[in-house]
């Protein structure tokens, strides 16, 4: 592990289930949770972990927390093995699961007090969290709305001001105002050198708080990139109007970097281009071009491109 990396996931492979062949027949089923996933999270950054449902996000998070036994690879947190040193690691992490559930008969106060015994709460920071989140901590969890439960979950995850936070859809169910407050807190924690590993489907959230993102799809990590670079580097919309002959769509689609070609009208084509645009431009110069515009695609378009 480098000094800067809080989390290092190396060639993580997790397969669920077993498959057996007996007398020529297959029994059981294997499902890939994660295959050869490698990435690292640096100290003091907010790393967004994205992917469609069932892509392997929760599997990876649960593997980091040592809930799952991995078949291959290694995971280190603060340079410690996630399995052998699980207890030491947990003294320094905060976690909120995607489908958060808290003890229904406990009040928010009781939950804080209960978990304080395992990982001491930072009382000053707790006061700050109470002023940000407005959930009534004197009420039992079962009487709280989904959004208020999520607030209690966030308070619990952050109350000890841990060095590393694993947050699975942390603002799910929060109103926009609360979500914005949570984002502000995340940025403040980052400024203090804390590290956040965050999973989200909310692209605005990702753009607002994340420094880098990783996209996982079908159990495989397909991209790790700085958010800033992502927009400019990874997908561009190229709109070309031709004065005479319009190139054959198949010719353009055959170019490696071209993801899709769409005819807007008789003379104009809209192309989505990934990464290197030069090859496309070389082809286009063979034709008479009337107008050419190149725009960065939105983050949403980029994600959809990777999700599909």
């Amino acid at each position, binding site marked *: 592990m480098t000094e800067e990396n809080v989390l290092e996931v190396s060639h993580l492979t997790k397969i669920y289930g077993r498959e057996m062949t007996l007398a020529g027949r297959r029994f059981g089923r294997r499902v890939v949770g994660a295959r050869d996933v490698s990435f690292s999270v640096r100290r003091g950054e907010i790393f967004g972990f994205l992917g469609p449902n069932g892509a392997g996000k929760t599997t990876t998070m649960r593997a980091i*927390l040592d*809930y799952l036994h991995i078949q291959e690879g290694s995971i280190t947190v603060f340079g410690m093995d996630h399995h052998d040193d699980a207890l030491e690691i*947990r*003294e320094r992490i905060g*976690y909120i699961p995607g489908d958060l*559930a808290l*003890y229904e008969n406990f009040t928010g106060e009781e939950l804080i007090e209960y978990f304080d015994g395992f*990982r001491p709460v930072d009382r000053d920071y707790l006061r700050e969290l109470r002023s940000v989140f407005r959930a009534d901590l004197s009420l039992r969890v079962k009487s709280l709305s989904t959004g208020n439960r999520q607030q209690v979950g966030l308070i619990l995850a952050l109350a000890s001001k841990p060095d590393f936070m694993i947050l699975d859809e942390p603002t799910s169910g929060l109103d926009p105002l609360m979500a914005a407050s949570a984002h502000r807190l995340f940025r403040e924690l980052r400024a203090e050198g804390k590290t956040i590993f965050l999973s989200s489907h909310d692209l605005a959230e990702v753009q607002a708080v994340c420094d880098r993102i990783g996209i996982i799809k079908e159990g495989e990590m397909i991209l790790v990139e700085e958010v800033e670079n992502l927009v400019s580097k990874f997908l561009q919309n190229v709109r070309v109007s031709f004065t005479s002959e319009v190139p054959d769509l198949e010719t353009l689609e055959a170019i490696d970097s071209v993801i899709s070609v769409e005819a807007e009208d008789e003379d104009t084509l809209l192309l989505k281009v990934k990464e290197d645009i030069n090859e496309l431009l070389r082809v286009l110069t063979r034709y008479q071009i009337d107008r050419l515009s190149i725009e960065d695609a939105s983050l949403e378009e980029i994600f959809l491109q990777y999700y599909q």
Partner: protein
Amino acid sequence: MRVFLKNLQKGWKGGIVTPAFVSLIVPLMTGIWPQLKEQAASFAELLDSPIYRALLGQLGIIDLTTWQGAFYMYVGICMEWTVVFLSILVPARIVTAEIDKKTLDVTLSYPIRRWRYLLEKFMVYLAYCLLYPAFVYVLGVVGTRSIGETLDPTILLYSMTAFWFWLFALGALSLFCGTLFLETNRALSASGALIITQYVMTRLGDLGNLGFLKDLSLFNYLNTGTILQNGVMSMNELAVVVGVGIVALGAALYVFQNRELAY
């Protein structure tokens, strides 16, 4: 002991009300004892039937015409069934209920060893299980005095203690099923099969040549009927029950500490 104390505090309603309700059998018996005594002689003849013998096991050989005999037969059966239901339904769900409610993920993200967490929660079950024999003991002693009958308090203490040891050992087996399956229905089915099979084996063991089956059942050890007959609690039998309980509890803690929480 935070997990133990907090769960003890949170579970007090069910933990106290249920044993209080079960122990109501004692005042009920003291209330109807004069009528029960009149019918006891005719009912005692019925107990010679092999079916009743099988149903009552060792309790069937008790003299029903005395208060002590009737007390141990009715209260004994009530407590036996309480042990069966409690040990099947509660410990197996200590883990699985948390998995169903999805509360385990947050809790285990804190620095607490899984085995310790489970042990403290099992101790809550054991603590509330103490109330069943305790309530029956107190009500038994008080009730006996109130109707002017006799009941040996030492034997009563032995038999009630034996019930608690059953709750411990059978509960530990049930807990083991919970940690093995991590899913409520399967855990309950497994613990039910394990405990009810033992109960049935003891009963069948009283019939014909099936005595060997009894040796395989925990219900055969520290049995109320045997304690009543001998007037003491056999230390060998206690060692068997406690031994099975400790092994099962150790296995449950080991499995929960080391197994994957894939659900």
